[in-house]
């Protein structure tokens, strides 16, 4: 668990703030509310973990920040406030294909994706792909770009960068491809790195290496990070703060200690309880949450977790949507159990 007492004392400036972000997909079957009122904030040099099951809207949130949500998806409302130092820019108000957002992509905010094989172009060398961002945001000189690229490859731990930079993605191993992608994302020293499940597709041993690398680089580059995952272990390892997401909404958020030691929302509690641990009696059945994650299509105005919640209160929880309310400092939850009865 992250424990930096001296860092806890340092006043943090807010780098990215999402307020009631809504991203909907307009499909034939109706309106898919992938992100339905998400609020979170990431401070400078801090790591926020975004956790939830597949399909809860984590990736769409990340894509929304960079405004790369593919049609038929659209950022419908809300704010995405980015602190650029001299001003605050609301990314939600920018045109998705305009020059302003493009000057932010790759430069102030970068993203690393889950599957490095499909995320890299198969017909361009990795050197070409790394240099592309550098040439866009940092310099026009091809030779200088090459030098920076080689330096980045070295920093991410790829041996023999002079040779590797000319190679194509299919010639590298999975771990090396992910390192190359990290090099590509960090080449312009972004203030915020969004990592969308960067280790899920890798072998377990490689996972650990990549995690270590990311943390190192984060410290070197003084970056903030939004780390998206469904793996609780990783959250515990590297995050300062955590936001738990379910069906397009944040259901609980707080520091990593708050969430792990004092979880409030029934979903969070079950999530934590469903981990197999070494300490428990081996013959006890693993606890799991009943049912499946529903698709956010034709959602009713009720708590999203109502169908699967063991503490659901019929008549309250299926009548309206609870608000995200702060219960103790920095720890908020969206649940009627903690709301005073009306």
């Amino acid at each position: 668990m992250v424990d930096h007492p001296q860092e806890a004392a340092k006043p943090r400036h807010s780098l990215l703030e999402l307020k009631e972000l809504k991203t909907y997909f307009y499909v034939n079957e109706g309106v898919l509310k992938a992100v339905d009122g998400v609020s979170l904030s990431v401070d400078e040099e801090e790591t926020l973990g975004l956790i939830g099951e597949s399909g809860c809207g984590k990736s769409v949130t990340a894509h929304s920040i960079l405004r790369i949500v593919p049609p038929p998806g659209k950022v419908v409302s809300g704010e995405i406030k980015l602190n650029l130092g001299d001003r605050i820019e609301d990314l939600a108000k920018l045109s998705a294909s305009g020059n302003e957002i493009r000057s932010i992509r790759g430069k102030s905010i970068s993203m690393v994706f889950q599957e490095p094989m499909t995320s890299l172009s198969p017909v361009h060398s990795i050197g070409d792909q790394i240099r592309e961002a550098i040439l866009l945001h940092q310099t026009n000189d091809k030779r200088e770009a090459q030098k920076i690229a080689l330096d980045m490859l070295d920093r991410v731990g790829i041996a023999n960068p002079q040779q590797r930079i000319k190679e194509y993605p299919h010639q590298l191993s999975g771990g090396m491809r992910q390192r190359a992608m990290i090099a590509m994302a960090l080449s312009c020293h972004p203030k915020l790195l969004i990592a969308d499940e960067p280790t899920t597709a890798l072998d377990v041993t490689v996972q650990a290496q990549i995690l270590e690398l990311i943390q190192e680089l984060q410290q070197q580059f003084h970056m903030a990070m939004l780390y998206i995952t469904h793996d609780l272990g990783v959250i515990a390892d590297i995050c300062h703060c955590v936001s738990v997401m379910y069906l397009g909404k944040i259901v609980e958020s707080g520091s990593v200690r708050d969430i792990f030691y004092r979880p409030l929302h029934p979903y969070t509690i079950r999530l934590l309880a469903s981990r197999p641990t070494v300490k428990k009696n081996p013959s006890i059945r693993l606890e799991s949450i009943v049912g499946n994650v529903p698709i956010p299509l034709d959602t009713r105005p009720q708590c999203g977790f109502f169908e699967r919640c063991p503490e659901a209160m019929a008549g309250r929880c299926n009548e309206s949507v609870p608000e995200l309310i702060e219960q103790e400092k920095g720890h908020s939850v969206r649940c009627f159990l903690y709301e005073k009865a009306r």
Partner: protein
Amino acid sequence: MSKFSKRSDLTAEEKYYLASQWQLMWFKFRRHRLAIIGGSILAIMYLMAIFADFLSPYTPDQTFTKYPFHKPMPIHIIDSEGKLQRPFIYSTVSKRDAITLELIHTVDKNVRYPIGFFAHSEPYKIFGLIETDVHLFSVAKPGVIFLFGTDDIGRDLFTRILYAARLSLSIGLVGVSLSFLIGMTLGGISGYFGGVVDTVVQRVIEFLITIPTIPLWLALSAALPRDWSVVRIYFGIVVILSLVGWGGLARVVRGKILELREQDYVLAARVAGVNDGTIIRVHMIPNFASYLIVHITLAIPDMILAETALSFLGLGLRSPAISWGVLLQKAQNIHSVAIYWWTIIPALFVVIAVLAFNFLGDGLRDAADPYKQ
């Protein structure tokens, strides 16, 4: 929370989850309007071909020596005095031009022939069995009705086009069935067993694809003896067309089998002791049946076009057999087409049939991948 809800209570989303593969395909197909149109057009055309004898006013060999190269006759419902009448056509008078010796047909607006439905005309046999002389529509003698005009010896083109549909539309089906048999067998064997067999078959297919098909068809058709009967020539053409065409289907089959061979469920079946033939039949074929259907649907129009082209050039079906291609032989001379433009009408039917098949095939192709979003 009830675990078992009635079918009607299912939300749209749950219905989507529970639908079988074929139901999903049908849902997607229904949304593809062009495909529905294409399918309907084809249904109409095939019905037209089957009931050609009833639907046409005459028989295909009936010659009206007085009216060679007659223009198409429009159907009127308002007569020369402006009164509303039963649908009718005007009579034609033909005179021989003294200088050019050509027969000129002029419309005589004084004489009207109302169109009779379920009228009596030239006798024919339904399905070759029952003799009757009732046609859907005709006009009383000595009136004549040529909706699409006549050809050079005075045969009604409308009638001949309907009858020609029989051969033109059936050659596609028969030819594709043959290609399908050859292609499936060879492609399946090639893909499943691999090795030397695969290499040999692959080379043969590649070779077939590289040879320009039309010259090959020309050459093979020229080889069909002139004195063969109509039926033999029909099958000869079918065999020629499918011999050259099976390559494409075989490759699709082989590709799919190669892909599926590596799937885990095939391995599981093998481990369970299922024999090869059953594996191919039960596990693999249903998986790519949809692709096969698409490919076949799109192969039929190619055959129709091929037969039309060959017959047009005189190398395909020959008289007295009629197909749209044979009818188009009259349209070979550009100058005659310029004057007697109605000789091109059979080509219109070809285009519509081919378009309809393509629309249908496109819709099937979209539906064939029901899991693709």
